[in-house]
Structure formats: structure tokens, C-alpha cells
């Protein structure tokens, strides 16, 4: 596998070697793990907890560095920095939890406060380190925005191991995680240990976040948890598909980000990975079948076309036999054309050149539409107490959303005197 990756990297013209291939593999695996874990964090509404967590790692990193330097060992090795990061990160999470539970401070304010204050402590410690005679914070700055260029093969192996462990844990507890994410009360009613599963989820988030610091940097690592999961959510409602998609998106984004960062000058890895993930999200936002913008606009256009088709029928009903210019009864543009296509498809109108005329079926349908509208008008005035001067607007909007059964029930309710009025209205 390493050989294949190295070959791919070489084809991009990078200065690839075994080391780069290992780094790429490790980061990709981490992207996969972050995607999968992120799905559950998002569904459990814990996405931004990870933001507090990742910012809260900075003081831990600095303290670990200071301690290690004080005892004379290398303060920049990940084996020293990551436990420190995890320690303050978890402390930050616990404080968010405590503030939300025990005080009137809401969760969003707790997250924001912990995030900024812990990061502030980290910034102060960084400036202390900079001021120390032994201080060289070069290795620490890399953790802010991520720099895989300086990563060793051993570090990448560590990432890979963490990632694989997280993926295995999610696979084993998949059913329980899903139950807790969607309905924790039901889960606890059927005997799922909700607290334990939440603890598992948060530990996975901590593991992925802390090891992701190396690749993406602590300012942006939260994006690796959020973006692939949110992108996968756009495409599907099924949990299993979502997890697989998020894994693929996360892996792809990491891969593209690392490649771009190793190939282009002055391109930190973290932002590249996040931008790649952002592009994947954008694709989903535009093209996803049910939540995408294109599909949404399409649905809106179809509804508008239906409404305009109904309007056209009613205005043609004024003189059912005479052809009228299309421009008078239908608006120009796409919506008008869609409405015309709908009317012709249902055989309700005939179009001759620029003139349009009702067919006999169309006339019947138009009478029905007119009747529905009048019924509603009546209903709104007598039952919903809408002022008569306002009723035309409401009736206009509402007649398109009722189905025939409701109309039938309305007719029964409004009984004799309404029927007389409707007949009178139609005659007039």
C-alpha cells in the first residue's frame, strides 16, 4: 500500500518518499475516523463541544512542553505533547458540562467561554515559552495550523493506530451509538447504558481531536469532525450510509489536503484539508437529492407552476370557448412554461401558436378549482373569522394545498346555506 501511495505522490511530481506515503496514509485514516465519529457527535448535538475541546488543548500542550523542557527531555515530541493536550482538553469539556448543568449559563455560552479562556491561557503560556532562554516554540506553532511536512513516520503510525482503534470501537458499538444519538430516552428504556455510550463517544472525540492536532492544527481540527458528517447528512437519512459516506468524505478531504500541502509552497495542511472538505460539502449542498439547493429550487418551481396553472384555468373560465393570448393568462419565463407544460400534459388546454384555449376536461377542472376557491373563501369568513377584505389573498394561497377529501368534508359542514350561496355566486 505504501508503495502505491508513494507512486501516486510521485505522479504529482512531489518529493515523495516512504515518509510522505506513511504520513499520507496516517492522515487519511484519521480523516476516515473523524468522519465516522463526527456523524455521531453531530447527531448527538455535540459538534461544537469538539471546538471547545480542541481550543482547550493549547494550555496542556504548553504545560507539557514546559515540564518536559524543565526535566531536560525533548519537549517537542508528540509522546509528551499529546497527553498534555488531552488532559486540559478533557478538563475544558468537564467545565462546559458543569457550567451547563449546575448554573444558569447556557451551553453555547459555556462552550464559547471555555474555548476562549483556555485558549487565552495557552496564548499567555506560549508567550512565556517564547521569552524563556531555552524556549523554541517552533514545534508548537505547527500545532496551531497543522504541518504534516515536519511529521515523522512514527507520528503518522500513531495517528493510524488511533484512527483504526476509533473505527473499530464505532463499528462494535454502532447500534448503541445510533440509538443514543437518535433517541436517548428510548435507548435507556430498552437497557442501553446511555451514560457509558456518551462517555465512549466523547472519548472517541477526544482521541480523534487530539491526534488530529498534528495534521490539521487545533484551530481547525473541529472541521474534520463536523464537515464530512454534515456533508454526508445532506445525501442520506440512513445512519449506516451516512457513516460510510462521512468516512469516504473525511478520507478524501485529508488525502487532497495533504497532497496540496506537500505539492504547493506555503500551504499549511490544516486549511487545505478543511477547504477540500468544504468543497465536498458544497457539492452536496448543490446536488444532494432532497436537501440540495438544486432539488429545493426544482420543488419550488413545480409548486409555483401548479399554482399558476390553476390561476390560468380560472382566468380562462371567464370565456371558456374563446382562445386567449398565452401571455395574458400565464407569466413569462420558466415557471410559465412549466405551468403550460403541466396543463397540456393533463389535457386541460390546447395551444395554437400564441393562443391558448380550454378543452372540455379543462373546463370541468377549472370549475372545480373555482368551486374550491369559493368554498375556502366562505370557510375563512364564517369559521376562521378572517376579514372579507383579506380573504381573497388567503383563499388564493390555500386552495392549492387542500386535497379533494377535505373539500368534501367542508362542503358537508357548510351545509345548505353555503351550497345556496356558492350556487348563487357561480350564477352571478
Amino acid at each position, binding site marked *: 500500500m505504501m508503495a502505491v501511495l508513494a507512486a501516486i505522490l510521485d505522479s504529482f511530481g512531489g518529493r515523495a518518499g516512504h515518509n510522505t506515503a506513511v504520513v499520507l496514509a496516517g492522515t487519511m485514516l484519521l480523516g476516515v475516523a473523524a468522519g465516522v465519529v463526527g456523524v455521531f457527535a*453531530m*447527531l448527538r*448535538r455535540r*459538534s*461544537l463541544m469538539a*471546538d471547545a475541546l480542541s481550543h482547550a488543548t493549547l494550555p496542556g500542550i504548553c504545560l507539557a512542553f514546559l515540564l518536559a523542557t524543565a526535566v531536560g527531555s525533548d519537549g517537542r515530541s508528540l509522546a509528551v505533547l499529546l497527553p498534555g493536550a488531552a488532559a486540559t482538553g478533557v478538563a475544558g469539556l468537564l467545565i462546559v458540562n458543569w*457550567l451547563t448543568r*449546575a*448554573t*444558569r*449559563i*447556557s*451551553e*453555547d*455560552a459555556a*462552550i*464559547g*467561554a471555555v474555548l*476562549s*479562556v483556555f*485558549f*487565552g*491561557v495557552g*496564548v*499567555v503560556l*506560549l*508567550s*512565556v515559552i517564547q*521569552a*524563556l532562554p531555552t524556549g523554541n516554540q517552533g514545534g508548537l*506553532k505547527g500545532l*496551531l*495550523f497543522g504541518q504534516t511536512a515536519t511529521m515523522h513516520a512514527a507520528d503518522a503510525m500513531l495517528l493510524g493506530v488511533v484512527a483504526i482503534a476509533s473505527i473499530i470501537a464505532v463499528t462494535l458499538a454502532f447500534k448503541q451509538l445510533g440509538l443514543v444519538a437518535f433517541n436517548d430516552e428510548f435507548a435507556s428504556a430498552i437497557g442501553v447504558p446511555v451514560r457509558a455510550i456518551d462517555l465512549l463517544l466523547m472519548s472517541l472525540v477526544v482521541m480523534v481531536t487530539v491526534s488530529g492536532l498534528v495534521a490539521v492544527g487545533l*484551530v*481547525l481540527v*473541529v*472541521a474534520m469532525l*463536523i*464537515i464530512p*458528517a*454534515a456533508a454526508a*447528512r*445532506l445525501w442520506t437519512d440512513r445512519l449506516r450510509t451516512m457513516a460510510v459516506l462521512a468516512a469516504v468524505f473525511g478520507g478524501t478531504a485529508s488525502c487532497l489536503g495533504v497532497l496540496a500541502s506537500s505539492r*504547493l509552497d*506555503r*500551504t*499549511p495542511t*490544516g*486549511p*487545505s484539508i*478543511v*477547504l477540500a*472538505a*468544504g468543497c465536498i*460539502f458544497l457539492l452536496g*449542498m448543490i446536488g*444532494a437529492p432532497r*436537501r*440540495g439547493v438544486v432539488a*429545493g429550487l426544482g420543488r419550488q418551481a413545480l409548486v409555483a407552476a401548479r399554482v399558476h396553472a390553476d390561476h390560468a384555468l380560472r382566468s380562462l373560465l371567464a370565456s371558456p370557448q374563446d382562445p386567449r393570448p398565452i401571455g395574458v393568462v400565464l407569466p413569462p419565463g420558466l415557471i410559465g412554461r412549466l405551468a403550460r407544460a403541466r396543463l397540456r400534459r393533463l389535457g386541460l388546454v390546447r395551444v395554437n401558436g400564441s393562443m391558448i384555449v380550454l378543452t372540455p376536461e379543462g373546463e370541468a377542472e377549472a370549475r372545480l378549482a373555482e368551486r374550491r376557491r369559493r368554498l375556502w373563501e366562505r370557510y375563512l369568513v364564517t369559521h376562521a373569522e378572517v376579514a372579507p377584505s383579506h380573504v381573497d389573498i388567503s383563499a388564493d394561497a390555500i386552495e392549492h394545498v387542500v386535497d379533494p377529501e377535505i373539500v368534501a368534508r367542508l362542503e358537508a359542514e357548510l351545509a345548505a346555506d353555503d351550497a345556496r350561496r356558492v350556487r348563487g355566486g357561480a350564477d352571478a
Partner: protein
Amino acid sequence: MNEGVYGFVSIDLPPLLAGTLACVTCAILGNYLVLRRMSLMGDAISHSVLPGLVIAFMLSGSRDPLPMFVGATIAGLFTVGLVELLRRYARVEPGAAMGVVFSVMFAMGVLLLERGAGRQVDLDADCVLNGVMETMIWFPPEEAGSLARWSTWVSLPRQVWTLGVVLLVVLAAVGMLFKELRIVAFDPGLATSQGFHAGLLNTLLMVLVACATVASFEAVGSILVIAMLICPAASARMLTDRLWVQVVLSVVLAAAAGITGYLLGAYAPTLLGLPAAVSASGMITVVAGVIMLLSVLFAPSHGTVARRFRRVRMSLRVAREDLLASLYRAEESGAAARAVASRPVDAIVLRRAIARGQVRLANGVPALTDRGRDVARGIVRSHRLWESYLVERGGLAPDHVHGTAMRLEHLTDSASGARFEPPQPDSPTDPHARPIPPR
């Protein structure tokens, strides 16, 4: 001016002013974000103005403040709009929607900076996070009395003036729209039904937040902006229930954090023997955090310590009342009172009852005093009235009401302190045929 004063005025005064102005401006707006549970919108905006700044710089080709201000404000509003779009139309979960937007925008900003623009703009990602407080220096004329002239102050660094103007704008907007903003903050639905356009006010709030963010973070960095949007307002919210008090308190706390934090950052390290000053904006953030922690712990009525204290006091009262009631029942049935102090807490409860003159010890065995008997009679009366009520009106079985009555007998009116009494029962005795003592 002597040298020390001149040094302070030229090196410390500009960042001190900028820091304090930024803190106050953000804190005022933060009140509304915190109340509307939109604190993280401030976080999102302060991250995502970065690409706006950089693009404005690239288009205008200068560090002229106006284009950058416009660019960053547009970026901020774009963020708000995009988050809303994702939430409403793509039905992305709100937290995730915010996370997607701000991380992508920030990533774009960092890349733009690193790949070119940063070279000329002399901004880097680091100074976006931490600000450039330390580099703000001012050289007023050195002769004595120059500080008394207005023209001297005009030459203060641009960031200070920008912040001053933004603070005035924020004050004016919040002052004029105080009532409207308050109703929108607490109940947007009610606001709309009363004819205020909640959405419009919300947009205005976001514009103000974006302006405040842009003006501040150029001087003090985005981390301090986030801290100041949240910490002072959250601290003030712990201390009061009135909005205007909360706003004033948050301003005071923010100014205190700004001044103390800056001075600590500038002077404390030298006192501790460190060679250089530590990051001022980091230090202000830390001070704001400490203030928030203190108010969370020690706020008079909402603080966790006060709440714990009230709980302990109430459980001691309940235990003392239970002791009095059990002594009363023992007297009533003629049984000998037993020594009640078996747990350590019982000893405390007994001591408190003795201190109040409600119980005395006769040969080591507790007995009611006259005053104690009056109180105990009230408790037992309340207990039996509740039992009757629960059986007669509540339809419960007589052997199921004791536990509930044990809790209800301690209910008192919080204003007068009088024991709460259920309506008089039909029968003169309780469901267990025991007499209900007179009041």
C-alpha cells in the same frame, strides 16, 4: 513630562485604551448574544471575517481601514446568512452549520494569507488570533502639558480611534433600541406579534457584532473578541436578573478585565523575574475567565456556592423539624423518648434545636421545651391535615399518604415564613384516627 510617564503614555496607553474599548464594545453586544443563546455566532463571525479582510486588502491594494472594514463586515453578514441558509434549507443541525461555515471561511482566510497576500499585508494567521496590541506605539509631543491639548490626542493610533467610534455607534444603537432589543432577546415570537421585526433587529445586532469584531480584532485578536462577547455578559447574568443592570455590570467587568489584564501582562512577568512581557490579549482573556469563574461560584443568589449553602440549610431545617415532630409524637403516645443522635448529622441537628431553645436535654435524653412544643404541634398538625387532604380530596389509600405528607409538612410560604396549610378536613381526626392538634 518625565521619562517614566512618557514611557507609559507612549508604550502602554494606546494598547491599554484599545484593549479596554474593545472589551467594553464587545461586552455590551455580548449581553444580547448570550441571552439569545447565540454566543457562538460571535465566535463564528470573528473567525470568518478573516477572508473578508484579506480579499478587501487584495482588491484595494492598501491597508486603508475603510475597504477592510467593509470587506470584513460583508464577510460577517455572509456568514450569518449562510448559517441560516444551511439551517433552514439544507436542514443541517445548527451547531454543525456554524462549524462548517466558520471553519471553511477561516481556512480560506489562512490560505489566502499564507499564499501571498500576507507578504504585503503584514498580517499573519498568528496575529489574527492574538492581535497586535504590543506593537501599538504612540509618540505624542514631549513638552509638558501637551496631553492637555486635543490636537495631541488626535494622533493616537488609528485602531484606538476606530474602536472609539464603533463604541459610540454601539452605545447609540443599544440605547435607542433598548426596549426592542430586550423583547427580542427574551421572546422573539412575542416581539414579532407586537409588531417589532425580530428578523430585522437580529440582522442589526449581527451587523453591530460584525463591526465590533472587525474593529476589535485588528487590535486585540479574535480570541479576546470571543472571550469578551461571552465572559462579561455571562458573569453579569450570574449576578442579576435585570437586563439594564446586566448590561452596566458587563461593561464594568469588561473594563476591569481589560485594564487589569493588560497591566498584569505588561508588568507582572518583570516582577516575577521573567525577561519579557507576556501576551496582553491572552492575559485579558484569562482575567475575564477568572472573573467569570468567581461570579459563577460566588454570585449572591445564582452562584453555585450560594445554592449549595441554601440546600444544606434547608436540609438542616427539615431534619430539625422531623426531630421536633418525632419528639411530639413520642410525648403524645406516652412512650419514652429515645436518644436520637445516632448519625453525626443528628448531633448537629440536635445542637441546633437546643440552640434555638426548642429542645433540652434531660439526663442525656432530648425533650421538647414549651417553645419547641408549639413549633412541633404546628408541624404535626400540618402533617395530619395533609394526610386527611390526600385521602379525602386526593383519593389516595390511607396507608399511601404518610411519605408524601412527610415532605409536604415542611412547606412554608417563602414571603411570610408561615407554614402552608391545606383546607380543613371533614372529619376531626386524620385517616389513622389520630387527633389533629389545634393551631
